């Protein structure tokens, strides 16, 4: 699991995590370059060239993140958390506005999203907070971890960036659950959260965010109406069919992105669609096909086989992370791995489910594949953190840690 790559500098490499990551990065570059060839942009503006720059930056940062022992990183957790919180406040004031959202901080030659950095900062901070405590096993003891999570979530929601904010919840719940928080307490929190969904929808969301959720719900309504009309007879069938048609039209209007994505994915078939044919051309109607909907592009060009490959590589990566978490003895190392696991798994599932209509459109990137350097670097840092933990097995704790 450990290799010496450079003389005098010991870089621990955990191949079971690195190999699938490398595979996903290469697939991402392949998909992006395929999209650009048809667009005929100047090569320096090409997405895959910029993405390669992001990979290079990510590799450099990952090396730094691997070389420094994870305990040292955890020791600076609150500093990292505080600094990122400041950046989240700053982005609301000084951030670059794009697509009606203020998510980017522009520095000379580079732009980055503090919310992406906060994903990792939160994992490290929660690991730091939870590792030697047992207070989270009481309901009251959940307050601090939730506060640590909800504070950046609130700031990110103001930007607004619903997708990234929502990702913090599985990270928090996974880390607490794995650390031994009482399931009934977590369930109670979920119920309380569910009660708050309606007010959040009513007053907390921007119109376009509501539009996406409406479109998703309408899409579910279509499925119901179709099923009903298939079974019904006579006037009922006609009524239900008309209703299904109306709902489909509404879904198309209100959820254009999702509809186009589904068509692009579906038209990909088993081995992918012909780029020149109607099935391949439809991809160019998918908005954000290089970022949030990159899986639609992949599924369209490479078909079900391509989708299976990506899911397989993601599964390999996640299992390898869980394997480190399972055999590592240090609570902080375990929590770091589980946090990264939840971050990547949650982000991947939400993104993939969104592209095929299983979840509403939330604006999350697909780890390692989507164009977007902040997200890419943070995901690579996550894998680096796992390598860091895997390379530094802790001394044995007695049975009962987290048990």
């Amino acid at each position: 699991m450990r290799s010496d790559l450079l003389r005098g500098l010991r870089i621990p490499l955990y191949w079971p995590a690195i190999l699938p990551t490398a595979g996903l990065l290469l697939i991402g570059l392949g998909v992006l370059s395929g999209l650009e060839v048809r667009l005929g942009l100047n090569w320096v503006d090409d997405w895959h060239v910029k993405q390669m720059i992001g990979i290079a930056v990510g590799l450099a940062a990952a090396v730094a993140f691997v070389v420094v022992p994870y305990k040292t990183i955890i020791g600076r957790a609150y500093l990292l958390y505080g600094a990122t919180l400041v950046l989240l406040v700053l982005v609301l004031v000084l951030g670059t506005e794009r697509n009606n959202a203020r998510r980017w901080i522009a520095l000379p030659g580079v732009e980055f999203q503090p919310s992406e950095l906060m994903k990792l900062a939160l994992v490290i901070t929660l690991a730091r907070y939870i590792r030697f405590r047992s207070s989270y096993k009481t309901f009251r003891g959940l307050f601090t971890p939730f506060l640590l999570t909800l504070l950046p979530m609130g700031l990110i929601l103001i930007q607004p960036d619903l997708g990234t904010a929502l990702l913090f919840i599985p990270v928090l719940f996974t880390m607490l659950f794995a650390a031994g928080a009482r399931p009934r307490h977590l369930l109670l929190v979920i119920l309380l959260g569910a009660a708050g969904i309606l007010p959040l929808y009513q007053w907390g969301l921007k119109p376009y965010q509501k539009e996406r959720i409406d479109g998703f719900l309408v899409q579910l309504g279509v499925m119901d109406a179709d099923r009903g009309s298939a079974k019904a007879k006579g006037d009922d069938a006609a009524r239900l069919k008309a209703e299904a048609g109306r709902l489909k039209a509404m879904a198309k209007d209100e959820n254009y992105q999702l509809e186009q994505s589904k068509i692009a994915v579906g038209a990909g078939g088993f081995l992918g669609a012909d780029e020149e044919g109607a099935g391949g051309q439809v991809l160019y109607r998918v908005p954000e096909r290089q970022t949030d909907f990159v899986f639609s592009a992949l599924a369209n060009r490479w078909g079900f086989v391509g989708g299976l490959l990506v899911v397989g590589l993601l599964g390999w990566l996640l299992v390898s992370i869980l394997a480190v978490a399972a055999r590592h003895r240090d609570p902080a190392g375990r929590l770091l791995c589980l946090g990264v696991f939840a971050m990547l798994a949650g982000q991947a599932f939400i993104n993939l489910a969104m592209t095929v209509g299983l979840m509403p459109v939330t604006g999350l990137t697909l780890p390692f594949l989507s164009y977007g350097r902040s997200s890419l670097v943070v995901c690579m840092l996550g894998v680096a953190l796992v390598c860091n933990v895997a390379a530094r097995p802790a001394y044995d704790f007695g049975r009962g840690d987290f048990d």
Partner: protein
Amino acid sequence: MTLGYRGRLTLLAVLAAVLGGAFLTRLFAMQVAGRAAYRREAESQVAGKRAVHARRGRILDREGKELATEEAGFELTVRAAAWQSVMHECPRCGLVRFQPEKQPPGKCIRCGKRLVRVDRSDPAPLARLLGMSVEELRDRVETRVKEVVEIVEERVGTDLPPRQEKAERARLWGDYGWRPRRIARDVPYEVAREVELNPHQYPAFRIVSVHTRRASGGRDFVHILGLVREDSRRVDGIDVDLAVGVSGLERAFDAALQGEPGMMEVERDPRDGEERIVARTAPRHGEDIRLTIAAGDQARAVAALGGASGAFVVIDANDGSVLAAASSPTYDPDDYARVLAEVRDAKERLGRWPKHHALQESAFSGFDAPGSIVKPVTAVAALVSGVATPDTSIECDRHFRNRRGQPLDTLKCSSAHGEVTIHEALVRSCNVYFQTVQKEAIERGAFDRMFEVARRFGFGLPTGIELEPAPFPDTWDPGKDWANNVWMAIGQGRVRLSPAQVARAYAAIATGSLPRLRLVAEVGGQAVPPERTPLGIDESALRMVREALVEVPRRGTAAGHGLERWPISVKTGTAQLGGALQNAWLAGYVPEHRGRPAIAFALVLFDTELNAAAACAPVLEEFLRGFYGEDRP
């Protein structure tokens, strides 16, 4: 039971596996099981059909001169839905999207950039281009938009429940609202180019190229060629605009002239809006039609009529080709709307359609009492059926005597002809002779035979010209009435003939064969062969009639009107209409002369106070001078 750390990790792994499995199941359902449906959806988004215009065939005269052609032009149209929408534009790539006022701007489907609203609703620049006031342009647009709204509301109806009504209205508006509606015709090329090259500057407007039927044959040919109107037909699932013939040859040969539009299957590239043709079926252009008429001869016939109400048909006596077919009064096809309004006004005043008017075609479909024009046929019938011989003579004291021997005052001769043979009766057009012969035929049971001989000359039968009414009216049918049967011999009573029928009968007298008339010599390069049917009548009877007709312009009823200088045989006819007005007929034939083929002709002037020769001879004389080239230096 509480789970240990490993158990919780296992649970997390299972949860991840379940979610991954659910996703893969969904992916499989979409990409493998449901692939065809999504592929169809993709095709419906990017593919469309466009009709490829099929040029309507030309109509040419005998010498190849264009009489009806198609010309391309431009029309300015407005799309009601675009006019009533707010335009949004992508600040990065310039893509345009129209949305209702209330709908928030979405993202660019090409590059994902959020669209921004732009206001290009000011019609002033376009009004300046068109040289009209802003108010006039706005009025025209609003009128069209209102029409679309009315169409949509009419189709929505009032039977649907409110929710469905709203959805149906939106659906119809999405269809009809985007169809271009014409607001200006004959748009100059420069204006069309400006609007077409700058669609974002004039978002609600589109230039549509149109093909207009130009009838260069003008008023001389309007009754023959007929008119076309714009129509829309469903071809291969899409509406295609076509010019459809509604009268004349344009209607009779519509299928050949129209051709078959081609079809293009196009894909719209969503990145730049460019259309790519993926399949193309070439149009089958309409076939050209070449007439048997030379434009010059037709113009002479129309000019000879001089605007008088009447008709004039000239045919090739041997092969039945129509050489001229004039109906008068005539009109300029560009003035159709005005002429139609005048005719309708006349109808309002009279309480019935006027008897003869400019929109009426009389050469082939005008059936009138023929008068003495039919006497040569009666003579042949009498000779063939044995009712009369060349030597049979009858005493004419002006009055025909009925079955009881009483002299009748109606349809008498203009003067007492004395003792006349059949030859003299033809030359002097003796009513008494032919009525007496007919009475004799009825009494001897030879009427049916005489009737059958008249049929051989085409009386009551279609001539072969496509402009004749369908179903064809049999107007050579006297009925059971004795008087009408007698009057039939002199073309009076209930019988009616068209000038084309008369001309054909005279061609038969001249040649011994009844030709099938033809107005079209070629369709799409394929010749329409002439047809003729031998009369099957004793040549001596025909010769006897010919000998009489040749004397008519020399010492008979047409003498003294200058026709005797032509190698011509004619017969006059006057159909009494009651009062001072009558229809004046002149029919006959001329053998080959000055390089021209043998011709037969029939000329009728309606509602004239003059006798046949006085009314018709100058018209015929003027035509013959031109026809045989005597009016040229």
